[in-house]
């Protein structure tokens, strides 16, 4: 019977995990977060400014995307858009999936801007676009920065799903190593540790940010 933990295997798999982490996991997380942040805001504003029936449609699509597993969405997109690279599909699906969450965060943020602020812009005859840009969005954003960070972390931990469309991210790299060497324990455990090491400090940073933003207001 082989022992539970083998340091040699751990040393052997670590570079592969880190490489995949840097090349795929981090790339997808960062680019997709940027997409989600921007697209989410666009959706949130669009929903509040288009006619009701259009808003209903946008809402429905958003709900559909938000309420179905990202794994299935990845597969669906992968087999539908055949000329697109898997990594691009991955980034796009993560970006779009999380943009529906971000749209909700922005909505909450926008709604948390006191009604008086809207009224003041009207009393000053400010235009709609200027109202959004100069008053509403800056205030809404402050409240949403922590949530954005939280979703980035949660996206980060969802990246293993990329393995279903053949993108070799960290966990896939670990499993491949495991398959070749029949040692999974070290690969999976180290992947977990890397997740923890990357996400915990980030979330600490976010809660500090959260507190600072809260006090400044």
């Amino acid at each position: 019977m082989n022992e539970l933990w083998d340091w040699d295997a751990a040393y052997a798999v670590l570079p592969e995990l880190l490489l995949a982490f840097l090349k795929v996991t981090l790339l997808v997380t960062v680019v997709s977060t940027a997409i989600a942040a921007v697209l989410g805001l666009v959706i949130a504003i669009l929903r509040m400014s288009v006619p009701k029936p259009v808003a209903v449609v946008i809402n429905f699509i958003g709900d559909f995307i938000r309420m179905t597993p990202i794994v299935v969405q990845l597969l669906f997109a992968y087999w539908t858009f055949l000329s697109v690279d898997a990594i691009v599909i991955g980034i796009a699906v993560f970006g779009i999936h999380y943009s529906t969450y971000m749209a909700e965060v922005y909505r909450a943020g926008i709604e948390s801007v006191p009604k008086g602020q809207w009224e003041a812009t009207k009393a000053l005859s400010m235009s709609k676009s200027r109202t959004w840009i100069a008053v509403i969005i800056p205030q809404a954003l402050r409240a949403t920065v922590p949530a954005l960070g939280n979703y980035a972390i949660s996206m980060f931990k969802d990246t293993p799903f990329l393995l279903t469309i053949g993108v070799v991210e960290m966990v896939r790299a670990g499993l491949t190593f495991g398959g070749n060497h029949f040692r999974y324990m070290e690969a999976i455990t180290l992947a977990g540790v890397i997740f923890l090491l990357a996400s915990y400090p980030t979330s600490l940073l976010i809660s500090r940010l959260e507190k600072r933003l809260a006090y400044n207001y």
Partner: protein
Amino acid sequence: MEANFAALAEAAPRIWEGLGITLLLTLGGALLAIVIAVVLGLGARLNNVFLRGICRAFIEFFRGTSLVVQLFFFFFVLPQLGVDLPAMVCGILGLGLNYGAYCAEVVRGSINSVPTGQWEATTALSLSKTQRMRRIIFPQAWALMIPSLTNYLIHMLKGTAIVSFITLADLTYHTEQLRQDTNTFFAYGVSLVIYFVLAYILTLMMNGLEVQAKHKLGRGDSLRETLSLKAPETTVAAEGGRG
């Protein structure tokens, strides 16, 4: 297309069974998660540094490592240490602990956002700490936390899609099998729709719960909300923790 539907009809009983597994995991996981969330959420507010530290470590650990890793340990490693749990128990345990840790932050955040006036009134009436929490604060925090809990319930439903890793034949597994007999597009389409309908129903139920809870606090009245597919509010303040 007809061949697709024929294959679907043929696979229906198995998909139905997979649906059962998915629901069992979701609801079992949710029950465990809420218990863990309340325990850890309250524990993370304790004055005792030691107990609080344990709760915090627990929360950070289960949030920080990913669900796949946790399932791997419960199903494949624990037996080597002599603890041999059935796959379903492993699944529920993994989901419950993972999402319980997330929800603990929701519970803590919601309790903290019950207005200070309510806490002070309980002191002015000399209620004990347990009475205060049980009778005054928690019932009010409950209404605040439901939207975020709904959010995580949907996450959990979606999270069950990976349990084939621990030999559970859930909805995703069976629709994945369906793919061998139908075109890929169709199989995943069916899967998406089923998940959406499930999530929709769960959301409606939770919205109903929220309306009821808010109504008890004398806020929010209409059934209209129950009927609308209200997006789970990500109340930035109440969430407090990390999504």
